[in-house]
Structure formats: C-alpha cells, structure tokens
C-alpha cells in the first residue's frame, strides 16, 4: 500500500464570510490519481484553491508527507513539491510558448520536453508564438505539459481536458499513466466523466460543498456517479 503524499482533512473554506466547502477529506497517494467530480458550483475549484493555498482554510489541514503546509502560500507549496495547473487563465498570455515552458526551469533548453513534444507536436510548432494566441484547448495542453515537466511528487490538475480534442485527451491519459508509474501522486478535478474513468484510482464526488461519495473506482458504480453529475 503506497503512502499518501498529500493529505487533507476537515477542510472548510470559502470567500469572505461565505462558506463554500465543508469537512472535505482525502489524499493523493503515490502512483495513484484521485479524481474530484461534481457539477460546477459544487466547490471543486474552491477545494483546489484551499489545497494550493490561494484561499485560507477556515478549518482543517493540508499535509505534505505528513508535514502541515496549511500556512504556506502558493509559491512556497510549489517549492515544497506541489505542482498546480489552474482551471482559469492556465498560461501566461503575454509570454511565448517557449517562455511559458522554460520560465522557472534551470535553463532555456528544450531537451527535457522532447517526450511531450512527441505527443503534442503543435506545441513545438508554436514555440515562438505568444501563448495568448493559442486556442483554449491548446492552452490547456501547454499548461498540462508545464505542470508535468516540473517533475514534482504531487500534481494538482483543475479540469485539464477542458476544450481539448479527444485524441489529445488520450495523450494526456498516457502521460499521466507514465507519471503514476514513476511514483507521482495526482489530484484531478474533472467534469468529463469519460476521461476521469480512464485515469482515476479513487473518486471524490462532491455536491453542495460536501463529499457525497468517496471510494476506489471499483467500489463505486457508474450509475451512482452519473446521478451526482447530471442536473
């Protein structure tokens, strides 16, 4: 049984005086992916913001390898080993694709991205272009590559497949599988059930800010999941 790299318990938070999510608990286990599902507005992105440090927790803790990181700001959490690909504004529109990828790297060399370019050749073609000119799906692909290339033990993805063509979604799945095999732990918020089913080891299904259903993929029936997703 692999160990949890990122764990959260009793997580409660929101904006200002509004509480959006309550008593959330879960873990990202090395080599596995936890998929957070639910309709929009149920609080999935709020959960992400609590895990990454953009929102303060009203209650609860976030632990990285059993060390509390609840007090750390997002940049500190990244340095501690948590990569994050946000749902909105996923790239730097004003920088080139190349700069987006190499901004925080050790050098400007592109060699480490070879395996990603092999799967997403369009990114290599558009290296010199401003990321703002990319389509929505292409931006998501760029963000995805950037996040995975950071090679951190914990990777948080918020709706990575939004706007992405199905064949590229399959590439994303392949890359996630490779990373999992290498020991990375994923938490992925998704609204696309077909994609979630392919990458998830565990589900966390939310509604009205709380956990509705939770368990490994084998434990939860598809029909139950659908019940909570559809209007």
């Amino acid at each position, binding site marked *: 049984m692999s160990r949890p790299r990122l764990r959260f318990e009793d997580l409660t938070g929101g904006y200002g005086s509004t*509480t*959006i999510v309550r008593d959330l608990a879960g873990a990202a286990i090395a080599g596995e992916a936890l998929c957070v599902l639910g*309709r*929009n507005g149920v609080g999935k*992105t709020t959960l992400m913001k609590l895990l990454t440090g953009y929102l303060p927790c009203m209650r609860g803790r976030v632990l990285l390898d059993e060390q509390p990181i609840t007090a750390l700001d997002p940049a500190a959490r990244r340095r501690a080993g948590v990569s994050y690909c946000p749902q909105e504004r996923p790239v730097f529109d004003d920088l080139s694709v190349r700069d987006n990828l190499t901004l925080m790297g050790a050098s400007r060399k592109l060699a480490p991205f070879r395996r990603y370019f092999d799967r997403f050749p369009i990114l290599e073609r558009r290296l010199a272009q401003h990321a703002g000119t990319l389509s929505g799906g292409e931006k998501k692909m760029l963000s995805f590559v950037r996040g995975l290339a950071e090679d951190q033990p914990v990777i948080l993805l918020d709706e990575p497949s939004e706007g992405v*063509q199905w064949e590229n979604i399959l590439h994303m799945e392949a890359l996630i599988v490779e990373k999992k095999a290498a020991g990375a732990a994923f938490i992925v918020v*998704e*609204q696309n059930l077909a994609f979630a089913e392919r990458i998830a080891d565990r589900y966390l299904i939310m509604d009205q800010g709380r956990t509705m259903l939770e368990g490994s993929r084998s434990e939860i029936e598809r029909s139950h999941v659908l019940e909570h*997703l559809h*209007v």
Partner: protein
Amino acid sequence: MRAASLVVLIAVVLPFLLGQFWAYQLGLYALYAAAAVGVGVCWGQAGFLPLGQALFFGLAAYLSGLAFVAFQDTPIVAVLILPLAAIAAGLLAYLIGSLVFRRSGESGAYFSMITLALALLAFQIATSWNSVTGGFNGLKGIPGLPGFDDISDVYYVSAAILLAVLAFAGWLYNAPIGVLWRALAQNERRLQLFGFDTNQLKAVAFGISGLMAGVGGAIYAPQQGIVTPQVIGFGLSAELVIWAAVGGRASLFGPVIGTLLVGSLTAQLRDTLPFWEVLMALFFIAIVLVFPRGVAGLAEPLLRRFPPRRRKQAAIVAPGDPAARPPAKLALDDVSVHVGEVTILDQLSVDFEQAGIFCVIGPNGAGKTSMFNAVSGELGAASGKIGLGGVMTSGLAPHRVSALGVARKLQIPSVFPDLSIADNLAVALWSGRAGKLALLDPRLRRWTSPMLKELQSRYPFLAAGARKAAELSHGEQQILELAMALLTEPRVLLLDEPCAGLSPEETAAAMEIIRWAQQRLGGAIIIIEHDMSLVKELAQIVYVLHNGALLAKGSVAAIQADPAVRAVYVGGEK
C-alpha cells in the same frame, strides 16, 4: 442641538479667553477651516481626495480682492460681489468634477492628479499675470470690509462664516445626500445599481467643497488686505488636506479642529522647531495608514457617553408607487460581448416572460453573470440589443437601467457596511422615488413603505435600524441585500446565487421570500443558481447557458431529459 449651542457659545467667548493675538490668528485660520470642511465633504464623505483645493480658495480671494480694489469708493458693490466670487469658485469646481468623473474606473487617482496639476497651474498663472494679479508680490492694498475695522471684528466675521459653513455641512451630512455620499465611498457600484448617478453625486460634492473654499477665500481678501499666489498654490492645498486628515476627515468638526489646532500651532512652531513639520508629516502618514479617524476619532468614545437626545419621530410613508409600472419582458437579442480575444457572450438570444421565477444554469464560464452584467449596463455589448418591455437598454449607463425597473442582488453580499441598517434600507427606498431636490430633505430618512413593513415582520433584525450592516452575519447580509433589492419594487429582479453560504434553514426562508416577492410584485425574478435542489423547487422555466449562448430552455424535467444538456454536464467522447 445641544452640541450646536455649545459650539456657538465657545465661538463667542473664545477671543476673551485667548486674547487679541490669538483671536486674530484664529480669525485667519477659521477661513482656512471653511476650506478644510470642503475637503471633508469630498474625502471624508464621498471618498475622493482633492489635492488642489487652494485653487478655489485663491480664485475667490483674487476675484474678491479685485472687486474691492475696483470698487474702493463704493464698497457696498464689492460686498455684493463677494458671494458671487464664492459661487464662481463653486461652479468651477462643479464643472471640473462633472468633466472628470464621467471617466469612471480609476477616476479616484486620476482626479486627484488633475486637481494637483490645476493648483500648480493656477499658481503659475497668478505669478506671471502681473497686470491682473500683481504677480509674485500679489494684489496689494485691498480695502477692508466696510464697518468692520477692529481686530476682534476680523475674528467674529470669520467665526460667523465658519459657523455658517459648518451648519450647511451638518445639514448636508444629515440629509439623504450625505447618506448617499457615504454609501458611494463604501460601495459605488452598488449605489449605481440602485439608480443613482454617482458621477453627478461626486461632482456636486466637489462643487460644494469649491463653494466652501470660495467663501473662505472671498472673505480672506478684504480681511488680510493682500492676496498673494501662496493662497492659490500647492502649499495651502497640501496643508488643507493634512489639517482635514489630522483633525478627522469623516467628522463634521474634524477638519476645523485640525485647521485651528494644527494649523495655527504650526505657524507658531515652524520657526522654533525645525523638525516640527517632519513630525507632522509622520503623524499624517500614521493617520492615513493606521488611524483614519484622526483627532476627532479620539473624542468619539467620549461622545458616545452622551448620546444625542433623539425625539422618536414618526415614519413617513414613501410617496410614489413604482409597482404601478406594468411588468415588462426582458429580452436579449443576438448579444455578443468580447473581452480581448475571448468571446464571453456569443450571439446570445433569450426571451424572458414578464412574470414568474426563472433559473439560469450552466457550466463555469458559460456567461451567466456576464449576461446579468450586460443587462444591468455594466458590460458593453459589441453587438445585439437588450430591451425591457420594448425599451432598449443596451448602451445605457447602469444607473439608468436600474431606473427602468431592474434590480440586482450580487453574487457576494454587497451592502453598505458602515451605514446603519436603516440607512441601507432608506437608500433602497429613495431609489426611483426621491427627486434630486428631495435629497436635501432630512425627513426622507424616515421613509417606510408597506413592503418594508412586511419584510420587517418576517425578518425582525431589519427593524434594528441603528446597527451597522457590517455587524450582521453573512446570512443576514444576504437577506438585507435581498430586501433592499425588493424595496425598489422592480419589474425584473436579477439574483446571483442568492443562497450561497446560507444554512439549510436560511435557504428555506430565502426561497419562501423569493416566492412571496414574486406574488407580491408580479414581475420576473431571474436567478443564477448552481444548486439543483433549489432550481427544482423554484423554477418555472430553466435556461441553460453554454459558451455564451443559450443551449436549452424549458421545464426542469425537459432540460433533464435533453441530451445536449447532459453532454455538457457529464462530458464524453468527441
């Protein structure tokens, strides 16, 4: 009233207590204090900072001085011109305010820079236009006010002027317009959505501040006998702001305390203590960063021990029945909105019925709140039309759209936190009912309406009028904002996630209120909601938005069965 009589008493007795020298000093500084009160009107009430008030003080001083010099032989004419000089300053201020505030957004900082530049420019003109202003040495030999030659006369004239200015300011602060200024400073967007032209409110505040400075300046000229460019330049402008801040810009007497205490003390200590002014600057920074209530703020806990004797006054039923406006259909026709490269609304066409409860749902980024922003006039449409009952609203400023009968409750509870609950509700009542001149009538603060009484019986906390809105819990603030929107008796009520963050009991109560409101008002209530249990309970028709366009419309059952809607919510292979 007690406070006022005390102040007048002090004013009368002061010269006897302090002696002739100080009486003369205070006589001069009382004129500056009048201008400082004007700074308080702008900064302490309406929330914008004028950095060049000496422009108006000096302008009136020069005009008055020229009049007194020109009409030396018939001083009575000059005395008649004196108020005109003050009014000229006020009109100039109003003109500048009108022109500048029409650029919304960053007008706060830009406005301050413009006033700063204007004061510097006026100084340049005053220094170089020798023939008229006497240049750097100024306008000399101005005869005094006829009949007031004594040194103590100087004091009493100034004190009377200052008291008149204070009385005027006190009246304004107490009148609806004062409440509106304070509301503007706290939440300008919310006030616009209640149908008030905030740009004009700010321009009026600035005009009044110019008038107050002008009054001081107009008396200054005959009193001091000389007008130099110093009274129109940056130095005096800067000091007025400092005095107002240190004294306490939000209170009525604060600017006066600041001017009389700090101003006259500085004049004495400036030469003996070279670091006095440095200390004053540090003090100013501290006040701005940490203690904005100033010296007057120190006195506040003391004053709270003496609450004003307030006669229990009867409520007045608000006139006018906006419900007499017939319900109207809201229609969006082919509306497109772009922000940079991103299309927020994509040829969106939606027709809402004129009465009923409707819910708008859709994934993130579908354009739901943007649709509301376009309807309320806050987001400009690149193409397409929005109409209410046949009247085109696209292109109208938000306050005009509100005036047509569109009310809005924002996603995050948005009330006026530092106003009392009673004032919050009053602002809503005035919306659409109070004419411009009526805003000067303090009696309007006692308005009530049948709708308000019903709301107060359902939610007793709304009757605890004196409490500040910021003290309410989150749920109570949601209800307050909802109540305020309902009080305007709108034809179309836009609610953006009205139950966000509410407990199950609060949510049930809110749903009940929404149903009751629709029955009572007979108009349309359009709700953006994510919580499907609420949608199922309330919605007569559901509209599904996706990628900025209308995806589906129908009953709850119909859209649940719609495969296009399902694909959006569940996703799938392409």
